[in-house]
C-alpha cells in the first residue's frame, strides 16, 4: 500500500497478447545473473567504497508489476531490479550480494539521506522538488500516463473524456494529480493500483489511471475485462535512479553505465526478461540527463 509514485509512460503498448492467465505469467519473472566485472575505482569514490564492501543496498518497489514486484519467495523481480543487478555487477558485486529493501511512498528520500540505501531504483520520477534533496542518475526509462477502462466502455478514449468522472488512482501519485488538476476528473484514491481493479469491474469508477506499462500488465492478465482507453500516453515521466545528493562522481558513473548497457544490449535484455513479457517492443534508453 503506498502511495506511490509516479510513473508514466512511454512506449506504447500493443494490446497485450492474450497470454493465458497462468500463475507464473505474472511479474515477468526473469532472474538473470549478469557477469560480474572485476573493476577498480579511484580512491574515495562511492564506487570504490561499494566495491570494497562487496555489497550494495538498493531500494525498490515491491508492488509494481513488471518493474519491482516481490515474488512468493520474497525476492523482488522486474525491470528496476534487473537494472539494479546490472549496476551492481559493474561494481563487482554479484546479484546475490545485493541487499534489497522495500521503499514505500514516503521513505525514498529519507532512506537515501540517511544512507539506509545506496541507490533507489523504484519507478522514481525525476522532478525538481526531489532534486533538492537527492540526486538522480538517468533517466533509464520514460513512462507515460494512460487510462484503463472496462472492455465494453466506448465513451472514454482520451484524457479529456474523464472530466467530472470518477477515476481511480493511488493516493498522492503523480498520475492522480495530473488527472485531477489537468483533466478535471474526480479522484477515487486507492492504496495500490491493483486495488483499483475491483471498483472498475464493479463500475464504481469509470477508469483507472497510471503509467501505461502498469496498466498493460493488468490488461494482459484480464484481457476480457479491461482495455487501455487508447495507445497514446498523455504525460512523460522519466524514471531516475536516486542517490545521495551531490555525489556527482557516482551519478556520472551510473550514467556512463546506463549508456554502456544500451550499447551492449544488456538494457534490451533486461527489458525482454521482465516487462517485455507484456510490452514486446523494447524501449530505447532515453538521453541521460547530466545536469
Amino acid at each position, binding site marked *: 500500500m503506498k*502511495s506511490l509514485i509516479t510513473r508514466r509512460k512511454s512506449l506504447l503498448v500493443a494490446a497485450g497478447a492474450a497470454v493465458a492467465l497462468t500463475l507464473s505469467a505474472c511479474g515477468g519473472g526473469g532472474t538473470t545473473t549478469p557477469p560480474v566485472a572485476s573493476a577498480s575505482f579511484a580512491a574515495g569514490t562511492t564506487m570504490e567504497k561499494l566495491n570494497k564492501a562487496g555489497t550494495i543496498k538498493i531500494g525498490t518497489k515491491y508492488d509494481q508489476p513488471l518493474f519491482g514486484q516481490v515474488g512468493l519467495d520474497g525476492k523482488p523481480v522486474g525491470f528496476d531490479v534487473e537494472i539494479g543487478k546490472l549496476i551492481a555487477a559493474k561494481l563487482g558485486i554479484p546479484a546475490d550480494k545485493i541487499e534489497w529493501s522495500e521503499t514505500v511512498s514516503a521513505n525514498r528520500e529519507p532512506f537515501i539521506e540517511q544512507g539506509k540505501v545506496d541507490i533507489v531504483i523504484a519507478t522514481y520520477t525525476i522532478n525538481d*522538488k526531489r532534486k533538492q534533496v537527492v540526486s538522480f542518475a538517468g533517466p533509464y526509462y520514460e513512462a507515460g500516463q494512460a487510462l484503463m477502462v472496462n472492455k465494453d466502455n466506448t465513451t472514454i478514449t482520451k484524457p479529456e473524456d474523464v472530466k467530472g468522472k470518477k477515476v481511480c488512482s493511488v493516493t*498522492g501519485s503523480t498520475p492522480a494529480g495530473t488527472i485531477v488538476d489537468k483533466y478535471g476528473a474526480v479522484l*477515487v484514491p486507492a492504496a495500490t493500483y491493483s486495488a483499483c481493479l475491483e471498483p472498475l469491474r464493479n463500475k464504481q469508477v469509470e477508469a483507472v489511471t497510471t503509467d501505461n506499462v502498469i496498466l498493460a500488465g493488468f490488461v494482459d492478465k484480464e484481457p476480457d475485462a479491461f482495455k487501455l482507453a487508447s495507445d497514446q500516453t498523455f504525460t512523460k515521466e522519466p524514471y531516475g535512479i536516486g542517490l545521495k545528493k551531490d555525489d556527482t562522481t557516482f551519478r556520472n558513473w551510473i550514467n556512463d553505465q546506463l549508456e554502456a548497457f544500451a550499447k551492449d544490449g544488456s538494457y534490451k535484455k533486461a527489458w525482454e526478461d521482465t516487462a517485455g513479457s507484456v510490452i514486446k517492443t523494447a524501449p530505447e534508453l532515453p538521453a541521460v540527463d547530466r545536469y
Partner: protein
Amino acid sequence: MEVIIENLPLYWDGLLRTLFLSAVSGIIALILGTLLAAARVSPVAALRGFSTVYVEVLRNTPLTIAFFFAAIVLPRLGVRFEQFEVAAIIALSAYTAAFVAEAVRSGVNSVPLGQAEAARSIGMKFGQVLTLIILPQALRTVIPPLINILIALVKNSSVAGAFFVLELFGYGRQMANANGDQVMAVLLGVAFFYLLLTVPLGILASTVERKVAIAR
C-alpha cells in the same frame, strides 16, 4: 513548517472528512451497539446467539479486513454505492458497534442486581426493565469507555484512506509524497490535527469519569 501552512486547505478538508466519517459512524455504532447489547441480555436465545457471534467475529477481525468486505465484497453482492464514504461508514460502524456492545454489556452487568429485581417486583416486563431502569444507569457508567471507543474510531477512520476515501491520513500521505523533502513536518501536521479531535475527547472522558465516580 511552511509546508503545513501552504497545505492548510488540504489538512482542513481532511479533518472535515475524518470528522464526518467519525461522527456518522459513531452515531450508527452507538445505536447498533446498544441494540446488540440489549439482544445479548434478552430472553430470546436466537437474539443472544446472533449478538454473541456478531460481537465475537467483528471484535476479532482486523479493521482492514472489515473495510475489504464493505468496499469490495459488498459491491460484488449487488450493493452498489455511489460514494465510497458509504463503504467506509459501513465498515467503521459495523466494527465499532461490536466494541460498543461489549462496553454497554459490561455496564449492564455493573448495575446492582437489586435494581432489576425491584423493577420486576413492581411488574415491569423485560423491555421496561431494560429501557427504564437498567440502561439509563448503565449508560452513565459506560460513558468514559464509550468515549474511549470514539477516540479509537477517530483514529481508525485513517484506514479509510487506503479504501478510496481521502481523509486526514490519506491527505497526509499525499502531501508526504509531494513534499519528499519535508516529510517530518507534514506528518507532525497530521498528528496535530488528529490530536485536535482526540485530545478534547480524552479530556471529556476523564472529566465525566470523575463526575460519575463522585455520583456513585
